[in-house]
Structure formats: C-alpha cells, structure tokens
C-alpha cells in the first residue's frame, strides 16, 4: 500500500478449550456412521470471550508488551458473548488494555476474524493507534444432529501489531464475495444451521471465490498456507488448485475442528515460526479474504502455539450438549443474588476484571477487592492505592464443593491463593480438584463464572500449573 507505513507483527498467541469431542461419539448418538476426527469443546466456564482472553494474553506476553500501552483492540468473533452488550469493553478491561483503547468488535460471520486483522492493520498504518491487539475467536454451536456438528469446534488466535519491532510484516490482500447463503444463524436462532446443499456450496460459492483469492496470492509464492476447510475436504481442493507446498491449517483443523472466525489466523500463527512467505485465507458469510505475511525471522510466541492448542481431554456427547446449553435439567436454577446489571456489579466491574487490589500506603498490605476495603485489613489505615494483582501464586488451602444447587456443577474446587505479590485471594479453581494440593502453583485466568438472564458473568479463576 504505497504511502502507508508497513505494519509489523510483534507477537502472537493462540488458545483452544481443554475438551475434545470425537466425531465417532456424535455418530453413535445419532445411530449413523461416525466419521473421523475430533473437535474442541468449551467447558461450562469457557466461551468465545475467555478463549479470546487466553489468546490475547499469550500474544501480549509473547510481544513483551505492556498491556496498558496497547491502545486498540480489534476482536473478530462470529458470535459475541453478548448479542447486544459490552462484549468489547469486557474483553479490553480483562486484558488490562489502555483505558482509552479504541478498536472494534467485528462479527456476523466466520469472515469477521480476518476483518479484524485488516481493520487493525489499517489503523496502525494510518497512525491512529500505536499498538493494536487483534484477537479472533469462536466457539461454534451447531444444531444437534446436523452434519456439520462433528466439524464444529472452537479456538482463538491473537496478534500484536505495531510499526516497530517484530519480525514479520503484513503484505498484500485480496477479497472476493458472493451474496449467497451458506452456513448461517437467523435472527433469534441459537444454533448455526448446516449447509442447505453441500454441492451447491462447493460449486457456486466456496470454490469460486476462495479459489480466486488464493490464486491472487499464489504469485507471491507462499511457502506455507492457512486455508479454510469447512468440511474436511475443501481445503485440500484449494491447496491443489494453487499448488500450496504446505498447509499449516490442516493440523489446527484436525486438533480443534472448525474454529469459525478464528480458523484462518489460528491456522497460520504457529507457522510464523520460520522465515518465509505465509498466506492466510479466510472464508465466511459469502466472502473470502486472503493476506500475505512476510516472515523475516521467527515471530515471538509462534513456537508456543502448537502446545497451546493441543492435548485436550475427551468429553462425552452428553457432556458436549450440556456444555453448549442444549441439554438442560428440568426445574428451576438458583439465580445470582446480585443481578449482573445491578449497582454492586457496576461498583465491582473494573476491579474484578482488571484484578485490582488496594495497597496500604502505610504497611504495604494488599487488600482485595478495593471497593470492600476503604481501610487496610492489617493496620486499619485509610490510605490505599490501586495496584494490579500478581497473576501467579500458590495454593494456601482449598476445598472441593460437591453440594450445590443448579446451575452449579460439582465438583467445584475453591482455593485460597497466596499471590506472588503477597496478596491473598479466594477464587474458584479451573480444574476438577483431583490433583489440587497445598503448595500447588497456579496462575489466574479469565473464565465464565455464570450465565444467567441470558448474559455471561466473567471473573478470574486459579488454574493449576503443570508441575515442572
């Protein structure tokens, strides 16, 4: 783009849920041939926003960036957590970005991920933001029993963009579109519909426009590609057409399934670990867009991508239906005592999402959360300053709660954590509690604490670290 500054990739990250649903189990449930492979599945406390936080945090760490210096967040996800609400604000706050951070939430189809990348790149290039965080995430909710179900997965990827630093640059782009229905979710519908006719989709929509975009990028001789592969075959068709030497996205599709808006970038970020020319092509909602990434040297964070998205735990089909909210117990659940739109929530929103503490100026004790502590718990002093809490710590003591009313699910471990900055906090544990122990190292991760009145409630949980 003549006259515009070249945008650089400073760091990347990725994330996938910890559960995997086998295609064979879906087949068995519907009494038909199962098919192969598996796809990622969200736990009850994971969704598109928590995946976005995981990937975004990893990218910011890889970039070595100060989150408060990131002044723009572009988030592409096909299905925002709030259909109409503060999705972007919640993610930006939980990531601890600059309070004046700009950016956008792009949604409406699996194409929204690449749209977020392009919009962020344009803002950086134009100088309207210094450092942009691009996050793409999705957790597909297919209709039970549809042919698409075994392919529907989840995942997230993130890139930190700037004009300085980094070891890769964004290159040329190409876009094509056709105004035709493929997979879609009508207004008011909860599940993504399957294709009406797979052959129609292939011949009239997918192959023509994705093929044209890929052909437009092919002259730049990419050594590695990320190609959309909604059914497990079409990616190979395009790869053959353009003579792609290596399709990095094949491995991510095999691991997490179709991650929708995240698929194109999740399929390429791990490949930015080697110098060369990379191409990422996204498809969705009747649009296809591709972009070239010129890798000068391994991009920070790229080498860790594979480990971030592999090795999920198998989950049953029943578990999958429950986690997606498609299998619901009869009877009433216990509503939160504090509605998510109430004053207590409003008072606590920032301190909960940004993990703020109140440090006593006189004795140094960190009290949490600030809104409940106008005075220090240790010395009683009234002079407190807001600080960001440490994100790692050690289990001081814990319980595993087995007895709660719906919608709680047992076992629910809860731990008192001694954070590395000396603060103490009590949080739910992102684990089944079986290998929890006093002294176990944990890090704090954003998870969905509740889903009620149609909206999610987010907060931090303690995730046990793998023993070294």
């Amino acid at each position: 783009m003549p006259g515009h500054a070249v945008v650089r990739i400073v760091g990347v990250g990725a994330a996938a849920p910890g559960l995997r649903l086998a295609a064979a189990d879906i087949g068995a449930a519907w009494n038909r041939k199962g098919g192969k492979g598996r796809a990622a599945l969200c736990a009850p406390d994971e969704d598109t926003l928590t995946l976005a936080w995981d990937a975004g945090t990893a990218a910011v760490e890889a970039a070595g960036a100060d989150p408060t210096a990131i002044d723009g967040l572009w988030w592409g996800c096909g299905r925002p957590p709030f259909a109409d609400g503060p999705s972007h604000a919640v993610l930006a706050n939980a990531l601890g970005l600059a309070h004046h951070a700009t950016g956008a939430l792009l949604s409406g189809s699996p194409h929204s991920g690449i749209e977020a990348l392009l919009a962020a790149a344009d803002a950086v290039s134009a100088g309207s933001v210094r450092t942009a965080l691009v996050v793409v995430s999705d957790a597909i909710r297919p209709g039970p029993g549809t042919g698409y179900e075994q392919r529907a997965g989840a995942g997230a990827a993130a890139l930190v963009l700037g004009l300085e630093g980094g070891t890769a640059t964004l290159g040329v782009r190409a876009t094509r579109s056709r105004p035709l229905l493929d997979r879609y979710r009508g207004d008011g519908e909860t599940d993504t519909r399957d294709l009406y006719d797979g052959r129609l989709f292939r011949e009239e929509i997918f192959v023509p426009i994705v093929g044209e975009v890929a052909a437009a990028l092919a002259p730049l001789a990419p050594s590695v590609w990320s190609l959309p592969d909604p059914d497990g075959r079409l990616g190979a068709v395009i790869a053959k057409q353009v003579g792609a030497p290596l399709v990095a996205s094949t491995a991510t599709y095999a691991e997490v399934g179709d991650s929708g808006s995240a698929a194109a970038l999740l399929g390429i970020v791990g490949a930015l670990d080697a110098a060369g020319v990379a191409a990422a092509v996204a498809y969705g909602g009747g649009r296809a867009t591709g972009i070239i990434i010129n890798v000068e040297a391994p991009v920070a964070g790229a080498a860790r991508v594979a480990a971030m998205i592999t090795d999920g735990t198998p989950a049953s089909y029943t578990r999958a239906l429950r986690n997606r909210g498609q299998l619901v117990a009869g009877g009433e659940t216990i509503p939160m005592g504090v509605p998510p739109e109430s004053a207590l929530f409003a008072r606590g929103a920032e301190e909960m999402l940004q993990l703020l503490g109140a440090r006593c100026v006189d004795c140094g004790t960190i009290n949490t959360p600030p809104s409940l502590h106008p005075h220090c718990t240790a010395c009683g002093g009234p002079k407190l300053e807001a600080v960001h809490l440490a994100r790692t710590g050690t289990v001081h003591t814990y319980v595993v709660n087995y007895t709660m009313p719906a919608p709680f699910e047992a076992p629910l471990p809860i731990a008192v954590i001694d954070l590395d900055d000396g603060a103490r906090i009590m949080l739910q544990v992102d684990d089944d509690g079986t290998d929890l122990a006093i002294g176990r190292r944990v890090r704090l991760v954003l998870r969905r604490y509740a889903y009620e009145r149609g909206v999610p409630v987010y907060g931090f949980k303690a995730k046990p670290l793998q023993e070294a």
Partner: protein
Amino acid sequence: MAWNRVTVVGAGLIKMGELFDQSYEQMAAGAFAAAVEAVDKGFEPHQVEAAFVATQRGTLWGQEGIGGNTVPTAIGLAGIPCTRIENACPSGSDAFRVGAMAVASGVHDVVLVIGVEKMRDKSTEEGLLSRAAAGHPIFTRGETAPVLFAPFATRHMAEFGTTREMLASVAVKNHYNGARDPYAHFQNEITIDDVMKSPPVCYPLHLLDCCPQTDGAAAVLLVNAERANEFTDRPVWVAGFGVATDHPYLHEKDSFTEIKATRIAAGRAYAMAGIEPTEVDCAEVHDCFTITEILDIEDLGFVAKGRGGIASLEGETTLTGRIPVNTSGGLLAKGHPIGATGVAQITECWWQLRGDAGDRQVEIRNGYALQHNAGGRGSGVAVINILTNRNDT
C-alpha cells in the same frame, strides 16, 4: 463492679427437628412456655419487662419481616419492649449477652431472651444451599456454608496431621450425647465408619461432618440477682462474656488453623469471669462442622493448638472426659436452628450447672460452664458466655 449481677432463673427449649407442622410463632410460644415452666417457684408471663429475640435467617419463608414485634404477640405479651438481634450464627448468644447487659445496667429486672428459627420451610436447594449464588458475584460464588469451614480442615490436616478419623470422632461423640438428649434432632449413635463413608459434601468434609438443618426455639429468663430468690433457690449466674470480630472474607484471614474471633472473645470472657480455661467444667461450643469443634477447643484454651483432633479421638471431650464438650449433642446432633442455637446452648449449661442434665450430667467441680458460637462470613464474629453456679464470684 457497679453493675447488677444477673441470674438465669428459667430456661427451656422445644424438641428440635424438621418441624413442618409448627409455625415460627408456635415454636416461639413453645420455647417461652418451657422456660416459664422451668422456673422453680413459678413465673407469670406478664412479669417479663423486655425481650430480646434472635432470628438469623430473615430470608427464609415466614421470617422475612420479623423484627422485634412478632414474638411478643406470639407469646401473649404484645406491648412489651422487644428487639431483634441478628449477629450471624452467634445471634442467640449475642441476644443473651445483650439481655444480660439490660439487666446488669439496671434498666430492667426481668428479661426474656428467646431464639427462634425456621430452617426447613424452604427446600435445602432454595434455602441454605442457595447462598452459593448469593453475595459477591465472584469472591463468594459457590460458597455454601461448608466452604466457610472446610478450608480450615484442609490446612489443619496439613499442618498438624489431623485426620478424617479425628474429625469423625467429634461427630460420633456428639451423636452419642444427642442420643441422651430428648430435645436433640438426632437421637441415634453413629460410628467413625458411618462418618467416613457418608457422602462427600465439601472436601474434606462429608455429610456426617455437617450439622443438619433444624427448626427450633429456646428461651431463657434473666433476672437481677437481687430478686432471684423470688423465682428460685438454685439460680445460675452470668459470670462473664466476650465478643470479638474478624475480617469477613476468608482470603482476609491471617490463619486457617484458628478462628481468631473465638480466641480473642475467649480472652475477654475469661478475664471478665476471672477464670482460666482449666476451670471450665463443661462447654457448649459451635460445632456446625466437626472441624469447627476441633478449632474451638483449641481456641478456647481447652487443648493446645494443633491437639484438637487427637484430643477428640482420645476421648478428652466426652461426658466423662477431662473437659466434656457439647453434652447436649451440639449442633451436629441437637441441630442448628441458628437464632435458637445459642439460647439452647445456654439452656444446656443451665441444666448442667444445676445438676439437671440426667443421663448427660457431667461432674461439676469448679462450677463453670461455657457457651460459644462463631459464625458470619468467614467466622467473622464469635460470642462467648460463661455461667456459674457459684455465688462467690
């Protein structure tokens, strides 16, 4: 001391249990009648000058609007001054302390302290367990009552080698006592194996490590010691009391091997009574969970810190042990109708000090009985009352 001395001249309770057939008002009337009946020389209800009522779960059906006015009408004394005390699990203990202060101050000579609580008009899910969804949306999410005490058990086990058998021995002992208390919710003995094999509720606590949900009511009559002989020749005196608070949230605790509020309140109560822990003949302590009693007997100074588990297992707290604890069956067997609990504990102390405890009677050597509750979020408040049958204090 410039204050009037205070005596207990009557005390009583209703049979505790799941009292689906009784209203809040009927339970209050039953407890009041029991206390009046227990007065040796007779007591006319209209002699009550003022009342203090303890009811903690104002959110349970039938108790939402309860203030100081419900009980007087229920017991036929509409018009008397009456104040409701709500101070978490020690509500009944604190109502007793406030009632004693009202008499000590000279404002009133005859005061009724009554605790009344319906725990079972709501289902377990909608009642007690629903607190998992109450309070702070993040810091208390999933926090049912056992979550407030189980972290202490985990830590006590790690630091002192306390075992689940030791925890279980508390439940076994209290059920044994409860089987000898006609007012107890549970009237059956259990074994350590029963406790160990009961379903897990909140690691490391199992079902029989936990007190039941119980409806109940208890009442005591406090009288200026100058006038005690109008009612009885065998009064029991209030020797002292102590209250202390600690931070409400668990993550604010300094230690998970003690209930700090109990330790501080105990120091105050012993100082006021002018006694040492070794002079206590028996104690009714807060055993909402087995671990709580282990912490209590340490924090009250009955055993050294860390020895609560082994002391329980070795029988130091049985009816014939060195320091009998929860002779009534405690919260674990007698039940925990929250507002009534402390008042019912006072009633047990009154019986023990007067030698009226029947099969549960312990040897009264020094003439002191101690009553204790701790509670609130994170055991942030503890109340202790010490009674005596000695007129020389």
